[in-house]
Structure formats: C-alpha cells, structure tokens
C-alpha cells in the first residue's frame, strides 16, 4: 500500500517538475529541497521520517520568504517592511504544527496505529491552513517568489492530506461502517467538526477572493478555498460508510489533481504579470488577450475547471464531493461548499476579465516583453489537456491513481455522472452553432475602441481615456456579505489576544506584546500537560467533546 503512495508521490513530483522545468525562471534553491521533503513525507516509511520531511518542507517555505528580496525578484511589491511579520506569522504556525506532530510521534511510540492520531490530524490541518489556522497562507503566498508559490500551492498545501488519509491506507478492511477510523482512536464527532471547518474555510476564502483587488491575493484565496474542498472531502472519506467513502476519496484525489493542474500555470502567469507590469492590482493589469490570444485559449479550460463547469475536470471532482457529502447527511457543510462553488465562478470570471480583456494601460510595455509568454504555452497546454481528460473521461484518471486509492474504495465515476455524453453532446452542439454562425450573414471584426460608449467621445481619437470597469468589480456584494464579516476568523485572534493580554493581567511579565510568543507558550503548556498523564479523560475535555459533537451534528 505504501509503495503505491510513493508511485503517486513520484508521479506528482514528475508532473510538477515537468511543468516547472519548462518555465525558464526557476528559483531552484527552494523547489528542490521542498520536493525532496515532500517525497520523504509521501514515502510514509516511519512517523519520524514523516516528521523530518514535514520540517524540511516548512523550512524551505521559510527560506523562500526571506530569499524573495535577494533572488532578484522585482522589489515592486512593497514587501520588505511587512515581510518581517509574515515571517513571524509563518514561523509561529509552522512551530505549532511541528509541536503537535512531535507530540503524536512521542505518544504513539513511533508507530502509526495509536489512539493519539488526532494530534497528527491537527498538525496536518494547520499545514493545510483550515479556518482557525488559515492566517498564514495568503500573506506567505503573496510574499514568496511566485514561481515557488506555484509549486507550494499545487503540492505542498496538500501535504497534510497524506497524514489525514493514513487510516484508510493502513486501516485495511472496510466491512463495518467507519471501522478503519475507530482503530485509530478518532472520534466521528471530532472529524465532523473538521468537515464543517474546512467547508467554512472554502466559503470564507472564496468570499475574500471575490472581493479582493489584487491578482496574487485572488489566486491565494482561491487556493485556500480549494484546499478547504479537499480537506472536507478527505475528512468525509474518513468518517463515512464504504460507498460514500469511495466517492469522497475519489472526489478528493481528483480535486487535488485538478487544483494542482490549474494553480501552477495561473501562478506562473501571475509571476509574469508581476515582473512585467510591475504591479499585480487587478485594475491595472490587462490586455494579455491582445498580446497573445493563444495563451488565452490554453488558459480557458483551466479557468473552466477551477469554476467547476462541465467539460473540464473541476466539475467531476466537485460533483463527487457534493454528492458524497449529501449522501453522508452533512447538509450544512454541503450548503457552505455549494455557495463557495458559485463564488468560485465569480472570481474565475474576474480573473479572466481583468487579466486578459481590459485595455493595456501600461504604455511602458514594449512588444518583446510579451515574447516571453510563449514559454507558458507548453506547460499551460499540458495542464489544460489533462484537465479536459479528467473532465471527459475521469475513470481513465482514477485507474491511473488506483495505487493512491485503496482497492475496495475504487469507483467507476462514469456510472454515476455521464461526463462522456455531456462532453460529446456539448461538442456536437458547438459544431452545429458554429455552422449556423457561418451560414448566417457575414460580420466584420472591429477594434475595441469602436464601441457604443464611444458615441459620446471617440475613443480612437483620444486614447488617454481608459473606459474599463475594473475597480470594485463586485463591490455591491460587500453589503450582503456583512454577516460574514462578523464571523471573521481574524477577529477570533484579536479577541483571543485581547483576552490574553487583559484577562491574564497577573502574567503581565509574560505579555511581551507579540502574539507569536503566546502561541509558543500554549504549545509548551500543552506539551507539559501531556506528561501529567491522562489529561484527556478529565471531565472538562469530555464536555468539550460533547459540544463539538452537537455543533458538528449539523
């Protein structure tokens, strides 16, 4: 079983290497060790080795943030001052996840099957940036060298997936309902909480992605949202019966693949835009379609897959996740994921609109700046072809991933969702409408300055007027989403910080003012409490579990 995982790991790595090897500007310093660390984690030989791989990955991300300034990346984004607190932010969360991982290893005496497995689950959740621990992801992604962010968001953010799905690989038989999970001492209610949390992450991140004004932030929040999908699917496959688990696991695997395929080309595109345009704000980028139409038609299937629209792969994996969630009865988290799905359609359109179709406002850009785009054609082409394959014939891909999905959980996706007939009918109808379009009256192509608003003032006669509607694209959505602002997790930390600073006033000496020290203190305290012995059977923890199960029941 573990060897199958290595094959998948290597396949992932070869894919990401192939995609990244074709981009000329690669900062090898951070990708090679990160890929190596990921390989160690995927090999699952022993918990300690898993921890080592885990730490290597954390350290490479830490280095790449610091390296950003010196690696010749354009210093256009005013990051130097803010990078310091991004580093602190990341270090505190990486430390927290490392602490939980260490606790799991020592408590389980270096064996996988142990009742303390949920510590590893929490560690992987922190690495995957689910809601309470999501603060670090977006600042780190936007302040790293974007070519490494591409690799990071595609592969490393799903590192926790492997740890979470351990029970399925090592837990062997699935006869009874959820027995694979009981052997690992995981409470079903405990897992139900995490399903709810990760679907809320998907919704919250999609909401932030829709309302953001920055390209890299949009892509980072979209990664956070998709990771929320993947973790929801993973937890669901842990905690449900055989058929639902198989659908959920296939959905998770396919969604992880789709997300990786989409994010690498998009982040590389953002990397290009950041270098050439000098800015990544959505209202100032634009005109890419005029410069390279071919790139747009290669990016289109990927955008369609990110939005989850049928001919592309995203549709299959999202459908699998939705149906398995509904069959398992998690209606609240299905609703959260559903709204996040619609929001993904909104921010994908915003991405296409402001990156490709607005007028090129930067007159400083010369023609040969865009020659470099042709390096993007091959990798984006490869990724979009694979997304279409997943979309049209998912069973082909699930067989390929069969080593990653244990035998009893394999699923023939076509039986449930006629993706082949949808794609075939759609292709026929497109050909028919193209034929109808051809035989109708002829048409002439018109430059984009000749449009209806130019009747007031000729746009071709005064080029300095830029008529693009881009700033505040979905601004009216801010008011209806007010209620989501109250549930803002960032406030959670502020409230925690306020309480800690004022509540524990007698510990004034410890209050050094930076909340990262507090994270450190908590982990020390948790570590110490462990050696006091059976802390988890104390009445207070049982009561907490009761609350969790009630809330998670929804």
């Amino acid at each position, binding site marked *: 079983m573990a060897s199958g995982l290595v094959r998948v790991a290597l396949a992932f790595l070869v894919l990401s290497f192939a995609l990244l090897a074709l981009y000329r500007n690669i900062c090898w310093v951070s990708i090679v060790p990160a890929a190596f660390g990921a390989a160690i984690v995927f090999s699952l030989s022993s918990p300690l080795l898993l921890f080592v791989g885990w730490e290597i990955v954390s350290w490479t991300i830490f280095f790449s943030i610091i390296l950003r300034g010196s690696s010749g990346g354009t210093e256009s984004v005013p990051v130097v001052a803010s990078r310091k607190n991004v580093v602190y932010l990341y270090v505190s969360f990486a430390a927290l996840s490392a602490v939980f991982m260490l606790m799991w290893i020592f408590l389980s005496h270096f064996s996988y099957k142990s009742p303390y497995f949920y510590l590893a689950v929490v560690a992987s959740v922190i690495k995957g940036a689910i809601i309470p621990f999501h603060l670090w992801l977006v600042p780190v992604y936007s302040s790293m060298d974007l070519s490494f962010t591409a690799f990071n968001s595609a592969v490393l953010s799903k590192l926790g997936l492997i740890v979470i799905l351990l029970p399925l690989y090592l837990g062997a038989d699935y006869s009874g309902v959820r027995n694979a999970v009981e052997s690992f001492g995981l409470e079903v209610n405990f897992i139900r909480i995490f399903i709810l949390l990760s679907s809320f992450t998907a919704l919250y991140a999609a909401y932030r992605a829709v309302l953001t004004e920055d390209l890299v932030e949009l892509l980072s929040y979209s990664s956070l949202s998709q990771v929320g999908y993947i973790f929801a699917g993973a937890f669901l496959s842990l905690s449900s019966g055989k058929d639902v688990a198989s659908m959920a696991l296939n959905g998770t695997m396919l969604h992880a693949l789709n997300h990786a395929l989409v994010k690498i080309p998009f982040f590389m595109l953002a990397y290009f835009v950041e270098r050439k345009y000098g800015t990544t704000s959505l209202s100032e980028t634009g005109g890419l379609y005029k410069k390279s139409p071919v790139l747009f038609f290669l990016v289109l299937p990927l955008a369609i897959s990110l939005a989850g629209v049928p001919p592309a792969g995203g549709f299959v994996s999202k459908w699998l996740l939705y149906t398995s969630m509904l069959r398992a009865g998690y209606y609240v988290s299905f609703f959260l994921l559903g709204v996040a799905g619609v929001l993904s359609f909104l921010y994908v359109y915003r991405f296409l609109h402001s990156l490709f179709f607005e007028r090129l406002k930067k007159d400083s850009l010369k023609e040969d700046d865009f020659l470099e785009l042709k390096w993007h054609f091959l990798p984006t082409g490869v990724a979009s072809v694979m997304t279409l394959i997943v979309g049209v014939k998912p069973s082909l891909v699930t067989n390929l991933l069969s080593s990653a999905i244990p035998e009893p959980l394999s699923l023939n996706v076509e039986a449930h969702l006629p993706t082949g007939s949808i794609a075939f009918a759609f292709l026929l109808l497109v050909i028919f409408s193209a034929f109808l379009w*051809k*035989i*109708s*009256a*002829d048409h002439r192509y018109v430059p984009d300055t*000749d449009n*209806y608003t*130019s*009747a*007031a003032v*000729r746009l071709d*006669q005064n080029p300095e007027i830029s008529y693009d509607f881009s700033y505040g694209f979905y601004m009216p959505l801010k008011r209806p989403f007010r209620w989501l602002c109250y549930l803002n997790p960032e406030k959670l930390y502020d409230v925690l910080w306020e309480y800690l600073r004022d509540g524990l006033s007698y510990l004034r000496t410890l209050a050094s003012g930076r909340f990262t020290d507090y994270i450190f203190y908590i982990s020390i305290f948790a570590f110490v409490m462990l050696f006091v012995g059976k802390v988890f059977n104390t009445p207070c923890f049982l009561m907490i579990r009761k609350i969790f199960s009630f809330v998670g029941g929804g």
Partner: protein
Amino acid sequence: MKAGVLSKIGDILGDFINWARSNSIFVLHYCTGCGAVEISPTLTSRYDMTRFGIQPVATPRQADVLLITGYLSLKTLKRVIWAYEQMSAPKYVVGFGSCTINGGHYWDSYATINLLDLYLPVDLYIAGCMPRPEAIIEGFEVLKKKIKSGEPGGWIDYERRKDWYKANQRRLFGDKI
C-alpha cells in the same frame, strides 16, 4: 449585400426574409429633437406600435431604424453620425418633421442643420411639425412596405457615395468625424 450563405439562400427565400425583416423592426431609442415626445404615446397602450413588430432597443448595434425626431444641432449630428455608423446593415433613417427636410422653423439658426439628406441617407420623411402617433405609424407602414418589397435601402447609397457624405460631414466638423 454580401451576407453569407444564408443570404444566397435568401435570394431564393427572398420575400420570406424580407417579410421577416419588415415585421420585426428594432427602433433605436435615441431622442435627437422635440419629436421624441411623440414616440412614447406611439409605444404605449393607446396607439401601440409593438403590434406591428416595432420594438425600441437601447444600443445602435441592435437597431435597424434610426429616428431623427426634429431639429438636429451640430453637436447632436456628430453623435448621430457615429451611432449610424455603429448600426448594422440593413439600416434605415427616418426623419420626422420639417426641420429634417428643409431646416423648418430653425432655418436661419447658426447651430442647427437644414438638410439632413446631405449628411445621412434618409429613407423616409414623416411630415408635420412633430407628426402625431397616427402619422408615425402610417409612416412606418410605408417603411414596412418598402422593406417588404426588397427595395435597396439608404445604407447602400451611403456606402456607394461614402466620400460625398464624408465631404459634407467634414465641412462641418473638420477631421473630427
């Protein structure tokens, strides 16, 4: 008019397509002069020109007929010419009232033009210093008959004598047009 295979079939189904064109006229809802006040009663329930298939649309791209309702000042004429050029063929121009025919009441004003025909090919004039709704519908009947019979519209003349029209327009606006 080279309009693709459909129009070649069109020559065979000639009158069928012309019948469809005459019964579905999209009028550009662009009020250039004092006659625009007459358009709303023609549209609403008392006179109701929609029963003849005439619908107002918002943009020149979707429109077939451009109404010049009344006097046309220099500034409006510039915008009307741009809107006319953005309309898709076959397109027609209908002039309301005597101001478009011969300058009418404002013949000696420095701001309004006298002969609309110099700048745009007009297919139909509706007399009356602002024609009432009945006159407008009667005018549209004449236009529908013209379309149904397949007579070449004014836009063919605009394309053929493009430089003559453009010369007249440049007399007024210099090279701004």
